[in-house]
């Protein structure tokens, strides 16, 4: 009798353990286990985070697209809703292209020659002057830091903007400017500041190696003017 009782309890207990074990084991054949080093694990989790944020932004985009489709569908009968929606989209595209003045938080800094180091004869002088390629490198850094709109001395930088060396002046969007060069960039001001101010970036190289001055300030309300030139599109047409 006593032995029977033990058996019953053991049986029940073992069933519970079995269920727990099978719950905990994955019988999924696709699950391949890999042992990662700390570095690999960090990289992988970083990648996971990035993918998740990408997914989130894609979901957001899907939502806006869906709501747009809905407005088109529901406003099919009234032309005004559709035109309003289209106008809004044109405005957004213009803003993205740089054809409208934009405002937002961002950073502002000015880059100028290291005048006190200039000797006006030596080949060294090259180092202490701001060149066109310096402007380009700074622009690249700004874009990499996530700047959404950039201007130099009031010239909006767009996809077709050009920067040339023109003797002592620098030609930006076809307009020649003397020093100093005032950069303004709209974006997350904390990100922009920390990125541009980090040691591996071009501005630090300018400061420590080339002795060129600059000082970044964050601005809450920055206005960047529109691009006022024209984009030539004589020869291009949409590819089919």
């Amino acid at each position, binding site marked *: 009798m006593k032995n029977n*009782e033990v058996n019953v309890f053991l*049986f029940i*207990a*073992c*069933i519970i*353990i*079995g269920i727990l074990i099978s719950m905990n084991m*994955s019988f999924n054949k696709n699950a391949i286990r890999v042992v990662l080093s700390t570095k690999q694990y960090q990289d992988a989790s970083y990648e996971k985070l990035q993918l998740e944020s990408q997914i989130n932004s894609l979901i957001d985009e899907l939502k806006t697209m869906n709501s747009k489709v809905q407005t088109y569908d529901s406003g099919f009968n009234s032309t005004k809703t559709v035109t309003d929606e289209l106008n809004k989209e044109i405005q957004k595209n213009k803003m993205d292209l740089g054809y409208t003045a934009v405002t937002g938080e961002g950073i502002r800094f000015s880059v100028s020659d290291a005048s006190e180091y200039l000797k006006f004869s030596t080949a060294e002088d090259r180092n202490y002057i701001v060149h066109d390629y310096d402007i380009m490198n700074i622009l690249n850094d700004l874009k990499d830091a996530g700047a959404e709109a950039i201007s130099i001395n009031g010239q909006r930088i767009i996809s077709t903007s050009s920067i040339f060396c023109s003797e002592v002046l620098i030609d930006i969007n076809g307009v020649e400017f003397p020093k100093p060069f005032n950069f303004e960039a709209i974006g997350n001001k904390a990100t922009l500041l920390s990125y541009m101010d980090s040691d591996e970036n071009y501005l630090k190289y300018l400061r420590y190696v080339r002795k060129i001055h600059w000082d970044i300030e964050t601005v809450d309300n920055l206005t960047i003017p529109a691009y006022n030139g024209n984009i030539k599109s004589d020869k291009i047409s949409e590819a089919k």
Partner: protein
Amino acid sequence: MIAVIGLLLGIIIGVLFDVNIPRELSPYISVAVFACLDSVFGALRASLSKNFRSDIFISGFFGNAVLAAGLAYLGDKLGIPVYLAAVIVFGGRIFNNFAVIRRALLEKTRLH
């Protein structure tokens, strides 16, 4: 024998119903399973030495499991691997119990 049958039955039930617990909880369940296994071995040993008591078994079975899982969770929150303590204690006891069971069974077979 009955234990092995029960274990197989439990695994089959678990697979058939395909209940998957969240990945975050799985380490705690593992520790709990270990505690339960320890209780089962203890019960086997007690039944062989004829002093099995159902109340002790049931309280130990569930109490140990909950305590082990709870300690493992607490350890995780505090940053100490407390589950190691559970694994060492229960692992040691399982081996002890198994040694006793083995001896008892061998004694029995020798008598016959």
